[in-house]
């Protein structure tokens, strides 16, 4: 007992002393892991403990479950340092392994903790092999395709092991990996990658029950940039642009002028009549102004239209309208006093002519026929007839005179007018002279604006008007008495106020706006409306207000003078020939240079 106690104490003291000296039995080893790469073999690694300063040996012992037989590891070298390799023969899937590691040195040994391992659950395959990542372009879609192969040791062919794969990818600058699970296939397509970057790819695998393998070596792949990616788009854009430029150039070339016009509108030239650009370009302003002066002044005939509106009608010779020879003579004398320099008094000359004619008219009534031959001189016949006013106007003369009234612009024979009383009357007065039965037809003529430009011409028509008027008055001898001229009135200008829609000129005196009630009365009464023109060149006039039918003026043999007298209807149109039986030869040039344009008037 003492000896045992002594031994105990000595051992303890030696132990303490050896520890104090730094020498000790080995530290406890520790089995770190056991792994099987293919479920047919496995390897265990341990971590040695403190060696205690003395050379230490390690041994691995194992025994199968439910068996006490302890085996020692047969292969310490295959798997490297501190490892034990179990080959196929020693590997059983049916039993658990109880493994321990024993560390031994001079001072003692140490046993690690035992570890139970089931081979089926410690499978950790090797890394996949031949990892490659390439950029694939398919139908304008670009992606990265990663491919790999199974680890060589894993027997997936027979189905002994089934492996699932996983890959991860990131750019060099990223911190986090992006992981994708690939299942049992050995490829994977990655779509959501940024263009123009370099990516790193790694793959690993895992069996059904087991551990993930290590990551493979990094595979690098570079994705193409935007330009390369959208190559087809850029090509299309370039082609369209080129086409657009070509089309634009061609269009510009074709429409050069219009484009030029649009961009650079021409500077409008000066719009002055008579302005000669060439003279301006020559640089001589004097010539330009001279050209202006010469050419455009006085105003040309274009402005003569304005003068159409003004008609001069003299009142003084109203008395001459009285179809009385005596009166005529008196008036003829009076007319001599009408010598004014007023414009529109050009007919004063005609007045003298009228006076002369008056005397002559009585003598020869055959002049009417003489003059009737001329379309223009028809008025002469009238005057001659007028001279014979006191005598009942023969129907023949009337007929002959009938031709004359339409001729407005025929050149007046001065001498005719001279024999005749001055015919300046205000038109309404002229109408006033006539009986209500008379047909104031003459107005229609005034509608035609193609009056000779000369002012003097205006007077002629009035002269004729009055003459024709007188002529009309001759038609019905019974009414001659009624054709007493109203008290003479002073000469006054008549202005065409307006033209009725029924083709009737509405006149009003300029000087005397109040001009006699009769004017207004007559204005309303004595206006005749041309209703229509028959095929026989007969003018159908229509009286508006006169309850009595106006005398029909018929020419030729187709006298319808009695028509209206029987039928007193205001709307009875009176037929009046429009033209003389003279052939319409167009313009006839008279001796005195006047042109009778009445023949040119279209028949209404």
């Amino acid at each position, binding site marked *: 007992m003492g000896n045992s106690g002594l031994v105990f104490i000595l051992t*303890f003291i030696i132990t303490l002393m050896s520890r104090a000296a730094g020498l000790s039995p080995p530290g406890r080893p520790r089995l770190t892991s056991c792994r099987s790469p293919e479920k047919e073999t496995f390897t265990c690694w341990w971590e040695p403990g403190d060696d205690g300063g003395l050379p230490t040996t390690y041994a691995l012992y194992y025994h199968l479950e*439910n068996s006490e037989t302890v085996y020692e590891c047969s292969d310490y070298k295959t798997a490297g340092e501190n490892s034990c390799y179990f080959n196929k023969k020693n590997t059983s899937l049916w039993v*658990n392994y109880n493994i321990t590691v024993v560390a031994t040195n001079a001072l003692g040994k140490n046993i690690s903790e035992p570890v*139970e391992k089931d081979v089926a659950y410690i499978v950790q395959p090797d890394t996949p092999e031949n990892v490659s990542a390439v950029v694939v372009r398919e139908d304008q879609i670009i992606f990265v395709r990663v491919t790999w192969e199974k680890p060589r040791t894993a027997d997936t062919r027979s189905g002994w092991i089934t492996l699932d794969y996983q890959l991860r990818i990131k750019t060099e600058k990223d911190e986090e990996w992006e992981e994708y699970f690939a299942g049992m296939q050995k490829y994977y397509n990655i779509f959501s990658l940024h263009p123009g970057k370099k990516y790193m790819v790694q793959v690993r695998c895992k069996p059904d029950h087991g551990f993930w393998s290590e990551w493979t070596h990094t595979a690098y792949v570079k994705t193409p940039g935007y330009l390369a990616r959208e190559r087809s788009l850029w090509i299309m854009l370039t082609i369209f642009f080129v086409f657009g430029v070509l089309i634009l150039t061609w269009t510009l070339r074709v429409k050069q002028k219009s484009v030029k016009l649009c961009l650079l509108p021409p500077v409008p030239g000066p719009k002055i009549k008579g302005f000669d650009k060439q003279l301006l370009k020559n640089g001589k302003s004097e010539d330009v102004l001279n050209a202006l002066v010469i050419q455009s002044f006085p105003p040309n005939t274009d402005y003569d239209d304005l003068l159409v509106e003004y008609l001069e009608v003299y009142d003084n010779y109203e008395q001459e309208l009285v179809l009385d020879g005596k009166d005529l003579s008196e008036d003829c004398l009076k007319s001599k006093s009408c010598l004014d320099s007023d414009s529109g008094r050009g007919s004063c000359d005609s007045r003298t002519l009228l006076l002369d004619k008056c005397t002559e008219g009585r003598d020869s009534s055959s002049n009417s026929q003489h003059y009737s031959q001329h379309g223009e001189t028809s008025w002469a016949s009238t005057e001659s007839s007028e001279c014979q006013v006191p005598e009942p106007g023969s129907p023949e003369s009337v007929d002959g005179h009938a031709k004359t009234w339409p001729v407005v612009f025929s050149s007046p024979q001065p001498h005719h007018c001279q024999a005749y009383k001055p015919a300046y009357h205000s038109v309404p007065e002229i109408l006033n002279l006539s009986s209500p039965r008379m047909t104031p037809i003459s107005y229609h003529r005034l509608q035609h604006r193609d009056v000779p430009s000369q002012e003097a011409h205006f007077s002629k028509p009035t002269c004729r008007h009055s003459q024709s008027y007188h002529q009309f008055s001759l038609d019905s001898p019974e009414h001659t008495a009624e054709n007493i001229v109203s008290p003479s009135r002073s000469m006054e200008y008549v202005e065409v106020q307006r033209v009725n829609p029924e083709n009737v000129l509405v006149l009003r005196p300029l000087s005397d706006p109040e001009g006699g009630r009769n004017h207004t009365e007559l204005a309303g009464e004595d206006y005749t409306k041309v209703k229509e023109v028959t095929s026989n060149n007969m003018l159908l006039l229509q009286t508006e207000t006169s309850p009595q039918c106006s005398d029909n003026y018929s020419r030729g043999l187709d006298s319808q003078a009695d028509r209206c007298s029987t039928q007193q209807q205001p709307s009875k149109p009176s037929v009046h020939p429009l033209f003389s039986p003279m052939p319409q030869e167009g313009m006839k040039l008279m001796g005195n240079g006047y042109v009778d344009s009445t023949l040119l008037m279209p028949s209404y």
Partner: protein
Amino acid sequence: MKHTTVLQVCVGFVLCSLQAMIVPALDCSGQGLEGASCTISVEKLLDRAVQHAELIYRISAESKMMFEEMFIPLSVMNPHVYGGTMCAPRTVAVPASKSEIQQISDKWLLRSVLILIQSWIDPLADLQVSLENYDNAPSVLLNRTKWLHTKLMSLEQGVLILIKQILGEGGLLLDGPEKTADLLVSPDIFESVRTDYSVLCCFRKVAHKIEIFLKLLKCRQTDKQNCSVF
């Protein structure tokens, strides 16, 4: 002296306890919950056995087809010649029909499987040797037959353990594997080819049978009522 004795005892006790503490507890890490013994459960064993059998069957079928394509002309192939007698040289009766299999107990299932496996380990080894003698045997075929041999042996171990676990220690008291003396290695090439082909054909059938037995056994472990041979 008593004090000294007590002190020694105490020190000794402490030291012993210290050393005792070093002995690690049983570590069943890596396994599921299996209780104290840390053995692999029967379910898992059966799963693995079934997996073995499935794979063996598949590989054997592929090997046979490969052999057929390479070495057997169409005119010669006649399953009737090889299918009948040569594949059943067993002294121990093995249930063959469905009805028999349905009625057999687990014990007999396991025994049958074990017998089948044990009887075909050696023929496969011989086949391996024979194929190596061929001039133009593809390496794939050789690897396959080698693999079959290995796996069959592994399956044998598994079945043994299964028997031990299910049937207890008494299940192992069976007759040892019997070698089939029918298969003789003939120097004649044509004969060897024919023999090898017959081995492969029969083994394929055996492997299929083993797979069915094990699946049935597995099914019976979980649900005895609804298991049937499919």
